[in-house]
């Protein structure tokens, strides 16, 4: 238990230290040392708890509860004040409803509820701890070099990096809290801290757009928070508990827990940026790249899907599951389509995140062991690959001066190492034999087994769209454009280190996924569903073939790539190629430069259209279903 407490408190100490320090050198040192300690501690936690199926811990002290309550009230006052100050009254209203509600509950009914276990670890939380502890800290290390460049680009402004690094580490602390809290009031406390951290991180640059987007994020997440509070109230008053494990036990025993589960799932959906709440995550890309990487890969949105996945056993075959399936499925399809029309790399990555989270949420909604297996695999693979891609785009942006995919042609000549990392990341997103594809395979099988025709069609068409937008980006980068210079020399070593580690992890996870499955996910499913989950989509044979394919591709790249004895000749340009491969002689002896552009198919997959369809559809689903449940509760009072 000591390690768990350490993982929550130590990042906090680092955060405070970073807030106080104003100079570069000591900051660099503390970030790296702190990151290393956190990563090691997460691994130690896994080793300590590896043999146990799951452990619950009692902490009998009311002091912690009161401390949390005081902090909560303070934060609520802060949000209320900021909402008034920036004239975003909705934020103030939302916080003015939920904070008093929860405090009232804690002081009255909540006081009489005996909480047996405040914190726990099981294999799912261990997986999350590893993701936060390794990917999250790597991103912090990357931020050292990136923020120096960022500072350089915004030289005229006040240096607010101490605040930035403070938030990053605070975020990690809160995330550790989320994945080990069994007491829902504690979980809510950490949940709100991540909301607030992301609010400040998105608004970091304090430009008008940043402030607007940060408020959009906090308003949507506060709406989710309100759902969370309602769930706690229902649980407290009707079921006499505030423990997550109790909720799951009651639900799997056959009693209906639809109402609280639905509101909790709603909170998860907002945090996981599902439609109609996806716009906060898209707005978040205004922030410096490490923030995006952190929000998309190891924190924030992963907290959302973590909660929904955690609820999966009680979502099976009931109306709450149906709500989650529909929201996740529609989001996956619409976000995949919208991604086709994007040429801003960060925006494309954001839509891809929304889509993948949609798939995870849909898997959780199906709620069978096979589906949850796919969902957890998606969480793991997505964390690593998406973080890698964001960090690469960040580096590319600082060096080629653009995050537009159309400006990335010839990246293979300009920045060969960076382009290779990006290719690994993109391939990892959708190609066999790499990670995400394996999860998608499992998800597809699980959807077919659940006999849900809508989900089956959604995944078939969504996969086709996924294939399209990733491959055309890959193609853009692999184009060999003549006459480009290598400009990689200026990249910070810390960025290379982190990206290299990510690329290595991506490949390692692909080769090692059968082990992850066997030792982490399958035992977790056995406990969570109290049934053997032998019916996995991929047989041992399939897994071996996949692993061999990874090996073959790695070897092919190592030994054959770029080696040819053939004579190099100019390309065909219809007119006379001037010899440089980028100009030809047109009519009237005029030299015409060649420019090539990708397809975005705005008229088919325009962003606005996809968002309207998706948000209306999911909005209706949420309104109708939550309204039904709320109506039942109010009617029953």
């Amino acid at each position, binding site marked *: 238990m000591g390690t768990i407490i350490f993982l929550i408190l130590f990042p906090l100490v680092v955060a405070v230290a970073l807030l106080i320090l104003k100079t570069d050198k000591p900051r660099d040192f503390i970030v790296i040392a702190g990151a290393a300690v956190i990563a090691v501690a997460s691994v130690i936690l896994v080793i300590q708890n590896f043999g146990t199926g799951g452990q619950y811990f009692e902490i009998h002290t009311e002091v912690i509860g009161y401390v949390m309550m005081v902090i909560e009230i303070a934060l609520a006052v802060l949000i209320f004040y900021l909402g008034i100050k920036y004239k975003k009254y909705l934020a103030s209203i939302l916080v003015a409803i939920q904070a008093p509600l929860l405090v009232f509950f804690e002081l009255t009914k909540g006081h009489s509820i005996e909480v047996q276990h405040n914190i726990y670890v099981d294999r799912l939380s261990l997986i999350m701890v590893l993701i936060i502890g390794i990917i999250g800290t790597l991103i912090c290390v990357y931020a050292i070099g990136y923020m120096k460049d960022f500072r350089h680009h915004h030289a005229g402004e006040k240096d607010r990096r101490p605040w930035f690094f403070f938030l990053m580490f605070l975020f990690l602390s809160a995330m550790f809290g989320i994945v080990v809290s069994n007491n829902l009031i504690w979980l809510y406390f950490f949940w709100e801290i991540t909301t607030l951290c992301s609010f400040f991180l998105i608004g970091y640059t304090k430009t008008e757009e940043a402030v607007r987007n940060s408020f959009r994020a906090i308003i949507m997440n506060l709406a989710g928070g309100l759902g969370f509070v309602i769930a706690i109230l229902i649980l407290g008053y009707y079921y006499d508990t505030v423990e997550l494990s109790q909720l799951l036990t009651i639900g799997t025993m056959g009693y209906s827990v639809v109402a609280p589960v639905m509101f909790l799932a709603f909170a998860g959906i907002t945090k996981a940026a599902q439609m109609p709440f996806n716009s906060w995550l898209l707005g978040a890309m205004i922030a410096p790249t490490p923030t995006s990487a952190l929000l998309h890969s190891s924190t924030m949105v992963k907290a959302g899907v973590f909660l929904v996945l955690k609820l999966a056993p009680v979502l099976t075959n009931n109306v709450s599951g149906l709500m989650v399936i529909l929201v996740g499925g529609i989001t996956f399809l619409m976000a995949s389509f919208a991604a086709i029309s994007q040429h801003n790399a960060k925006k494309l990555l954001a839509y891809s995140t929304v889509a993948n989270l949609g798939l995870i949420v849909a898997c959780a909604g199906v709620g069978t062991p096979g589906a949850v297996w796919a969902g957890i695999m998606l969480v793991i693979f997505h964390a690593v690959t998406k973080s890698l891609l964001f960090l690469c785009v960040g580096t590319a942006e600082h060096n080629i001066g653009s995050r537009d995919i159309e400006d990335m042609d010839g990246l293979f000549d300009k920045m060969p190492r960076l382009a290779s990392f990006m290719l690994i990341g993109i391939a990892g997103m959708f190609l066999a034999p790499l990670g995400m594809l394996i999860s998608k395979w499992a998800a597809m099988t699980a959807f077919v087994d659940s006999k849900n025709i809508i989900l089956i*069609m959604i995944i078939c068409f969504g996969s086709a769209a996924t294939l399209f937008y990733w491959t055309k980006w890959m*193609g853009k980068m*692999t184009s060999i454009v003549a006459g480009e210079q290598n400009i990689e020399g200026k990249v910070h070593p810390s960025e290379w280190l982190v990206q290299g580690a990510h690329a290595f992890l991506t490949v390692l996870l692909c080769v090692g996924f059968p082990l992850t499955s066997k030792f982490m996910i399958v035992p977790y499913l056995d406990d969570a569903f109290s049934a053997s989950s032998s019916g996995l989509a991929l047989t041992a044979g399939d897994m071996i*073939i996949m692993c061999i394919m990874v090996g073959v591709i790695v070897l092919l790249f190592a030994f054959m790539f770029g080696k*040819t004895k*053939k004579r190099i000749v100019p390309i065909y340009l219809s007119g006379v190629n001037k010899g440089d491969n980028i100009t030809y002689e047109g009519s009237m002896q005029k030299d015409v430069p060649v420019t*090539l552009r990708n397809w975005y198919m705005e008229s088919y997959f325009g962003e606005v259209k996809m968002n309207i369809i998706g948000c209306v559809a999911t909005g209706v689903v949420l309104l109708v279903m939550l309204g039904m449940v709320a109506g039942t509760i109010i009617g029953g009072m």
Partner: protein
Amino acid sequence: MTTVIMVIAYLILAPVIGGLLAGADRIVSARMQGRVGPPILQPFYDVFKLTEKEAITVNKIQDFYVFCFFLFVVVTGALFFAGESLLMVIFTLTLASAFLILAAFSSNSPYAQVGAERELLMMMAYEPMVLITAIGFYVYLGSFRVDDIMKADNLTLWPLIGIFLGFVYILTIKFRKSPFDLSTSHHAHQELVKGLTTEFSGKTLAIMEVAHWYENVFLLGIVFLFFVNGSVAMTIVGLVLCVAIYFFEVFIDNSFARVKWQVALNYAWAVALVLGGVNLFLILG
């Protein structure tokens, strides 16, 4: 043991059968156009001649991608004939196609890139129907594995008739036949100076051609799955029907003008949605 024999037979026979089919294709097409046409072995002569051309390339990496394309097309077929999971087979084919597209992109040549973009678009067009086909077998027979599907006692053709028709529809795209030969054409100086393959020459182009033969045989293998009922007679009928479907595609090829990409995408998705979706819905119930 039979698995090993099947795979070896595929590796050796597929290019022979594929090449002969291509030769017969050219004769039939010629006759439909009132010409005599080349000898049936012409595709082999073409490939041998290509291998004797001077070794040239437009950059250092294109050949690597084309080789990977060839390798994974062969692996796709080998997995299929080894009786592995249909999903694995489809995903491997996707990987192979991605390599081909990257090969064309890597040249940074306008014609090759237009071809690559169109090829990618066609992939997006046929992918849902291919996945639905695999899912159809899984729903009806309870397994994605080809060796399990081969043990079917009754024809899957009738319960899966919608999916079968949908699959035959997208087969036109996979065979690169008109009206859907947008990315590159079998005919000289067509579809934007041969699109995808513009910058391939000599041995590289020969590899590409042979890969196409392998791919065609494997695709006909999927068609054959619809005709399995365990009897020897039906096996023979099934094989004949596979060849018949190949020539049906040749017939389509010569009867329709090439369409715009919008039409190709709209129709392919509509077919997947209607034929595939309705068929799946019926057998899921």
